[in-house]
């Protein structure tokens, strides 16, 4: 089947296989420049790129990844910095810095003003140097367990709220082990805001609880600093340092990649959702959750062939379906004949707004708005699902390739293009998925046509690459060059789309139907 982009995209590019990991695909963009001269918006894009060549893409942000050891070192450095100014020992300085959420200028200012008050507020008052101890108190009754045994040990901080040692211990254990608290544990008394200090924890907690307390205390450093965020991957110990602030999230989507490989948004912690801004992403997910009942029928992964009505299950990520029985070719998304898609792909990514007339009347209106939502949801869900299918297919293909390797004499390096193609597909589908949430809230104007063209071009490139994956393994070797070319091309299309949407956000050129601040 002939696609219009086949003409645009010359396949005479050659690159060595080992260049084709996800990162180095970025560098290929430069080599491909000359091939896109007849595409108007590409020209525009390249023009912008030429103006200031060394500049990084608008959709990328600067960041660094920090390990646990690096985080501890950073804290140590800051404690060292400040302790000389305050003339306080290391432990006390660390407590003061934590109390001031690591805002050292504020700490120093306040300390210079009134050191006694600062020390008292942070729990380092005059009695800090006395070791806290347990006491037996005659006639005491504990308000937690209601015990009044005269022989039992009791404890209170300087606020004077006294409980038996066992209850205090249980209280701390629950706060630290179950609730994950450390630096902000308050006195057990309702309404008393006295913070439980580390000496109290050391006196009362078991070694296991104490160790966890230390760990959590170290972790609060990241929670307290607005430029730091934990990688959200389960068990991942890395944090990311990035200067983008919460107040800027309507203008930029700060996507970062952790050392563990997870690509996520520094602004909200969600998996990569470019080009959809954080606020829209959240609204979209909420909407999908609220409307999941109505949208459910879409997620059924079987459909009937529009021609012969035999049931077809989608088994690959590609939207080009061929009915096994009657050989009818159609598009999985819109169920229209595939033949119409070569030149008229529009039908598949652009929702034609219903005419004003039809929308009159409350019922027609709500039906039109549901239809509109389903249009975008359908495409969003489809890319989500296809990404999984593409991945499954890759895993199967990889196994076949291993056998192909031995029979055809291709080296391990030579089959790496498959992995590069799979990675690119996953990434592009992730981007495409979020273009539909973006489009759902996008207000129509002249700029949106460029966006929709970019979306369509990327979608078309992705489906072509995805289709190559569905070939039987013995034919894969023959289409290696095509796959390498198309892998580079989808990356290129993705960058064009992201660059355009990121520039639009930065310049506040996009108008949305909802507030994104």
């Amino acid at each position, binding site marked *: 089947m002939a696609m219009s982009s086949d003409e645009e995209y010359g396949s005479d590019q050659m690159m060595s296989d080992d260049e084709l990991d996800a990162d180095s695909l970025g560098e290929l963009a430069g080599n491909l420049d000359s091939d896109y001269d007849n595409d108007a918006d590409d020209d525009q894009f390249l023009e912008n790129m030429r103006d200031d060549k060394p500049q990084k893409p608008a959709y990328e942000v600067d960041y660094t990844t920090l390990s646990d050891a690096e985080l501890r070192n950073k804290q140590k450095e800051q404690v060292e910095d400040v302790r000389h100014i305050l003339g306080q020992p290391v432990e006390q300085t660390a407590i003061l810095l934590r109390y001031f959420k690591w805002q050292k200028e504020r700490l120093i200012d306040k300390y210079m003003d009134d050191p006694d008050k600062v020390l008292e507020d942070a729990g380092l008052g005059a009695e800090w140097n006395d070791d806290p101890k347990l006491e037996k108190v005659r006639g005491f009754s504990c*308000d937690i367990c209601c015990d009044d045994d005269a022989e039992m040990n009791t404890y209170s901080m300087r606020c004077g709220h006294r409980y038996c040692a066992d209850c205090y211990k249980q209280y701390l254990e629950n706060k630290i082990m179950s*609730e994950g*608290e450390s630096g902000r544990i308050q006195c*057990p*008394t309702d309404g008393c805001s006295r913070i439980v200090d580390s000496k109290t924890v050391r006196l009362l907690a078991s070694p296991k609880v104490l160790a966890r307390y230390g760990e959590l205390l170290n972790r609060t450093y990241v929670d307290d600093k607005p430029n730091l965020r934990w990688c959200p991957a389960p068990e991942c110990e890395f944090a990311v340092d990035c200067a983008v602030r919460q107040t800027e999230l309507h203008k930029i989507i700060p996507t970062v990649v952790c050392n563990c490989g997870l690509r996520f948004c520094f602004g909200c912690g969600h998996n990569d959702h470019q080009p959809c801004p954080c606020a829209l992403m959240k609204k979209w997910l909420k909407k999908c959750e609220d409307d999941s009942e109505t949208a459910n029928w879409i997620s059924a992964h079987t459909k009937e062939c529009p021609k012969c009505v035999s049931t077809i299950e989608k088994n690959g990520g590609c939207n080009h379906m061929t009915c096994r029985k009657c050989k009818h070719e159609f598009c999985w998304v819109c169920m229209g004949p595939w033949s119409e898609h070569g030149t008229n792909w529009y039908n598949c990514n652009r929702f034609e707004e219903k005419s004003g007339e039809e929308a009159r009347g409350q019922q027609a209106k709500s039906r039109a708005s549901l239809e509109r939502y389903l249009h975008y949801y359908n495409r969003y869900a489809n890319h989500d699902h296809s990404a999984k299918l593409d991945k499954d297919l890759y895993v199967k293909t990889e196994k076949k390739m291993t056998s192909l390797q031995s029979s055809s004499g291709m080296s391990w390096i030579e089959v790496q293009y498959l992995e590069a193609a799979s990675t690119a597909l996953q990434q592009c589908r992730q981007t495409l998925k979020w273009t539909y949430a973006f489009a759902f809230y996008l207000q129509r104007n002249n700029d949106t046509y460029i966006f929709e063209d970019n979306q369509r071009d990327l979608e078309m490139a992705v489906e072509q690459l995805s289709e190559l994956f569905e070939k039987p393994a013995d034919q894969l070797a023959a289409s290696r060059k095509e796959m390498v070319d198309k892998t580079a091309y989808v990356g290129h299309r993705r960058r064009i789309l992201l660059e355009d949407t990121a520039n639009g956000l930065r310049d506040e050129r996009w108008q949305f139907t909802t507030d994104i601040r």
Partner: protein
Amino acid sequence: MSTFAAKRLQKEMAKIHQGLAPGIFFVNSPNLQHWQMDIQVLDSNPLYAGKTFRLNFRFSNNYPIEAPEVTFIRAPDREIPMHPHIYSNGIICLDLLSSGNGWSPVQSVESVCMSIQSMLTGNTKNERPEGDEAFVLREGRSVRDIRFVYDDPTV
């Protein structure tokens, strides 16, 4: 049930038998970790005057370090009170009842009842929380799994 929680609950029970604050009544306890209480609003608030409401308490092994699970339940002559922070399935959105938030181990069954009583007394809105229907539809979740956002400082 842990001896720790059991001991505390036995003490509370003994105190209850000596008397409770006005408008608060002990109904029954099928076992130690499960109590039912009735409450009435003392003033003439037209939303609740003359009505009695039933509260269901469930205690974990870690009570009173952990908050109890407290919900309103229906019974003959016992409705779920109308309140912008009480869902129609009886779930109460109150930070006091959340271990991570406002709970203090010094609280007791009686003090919880008193807090809920005053939450009703102060209310003038004859309405359910926003999204009540959708929330109640999602049945089968434990109250502990639900994370409320305490965005209203007036309750």
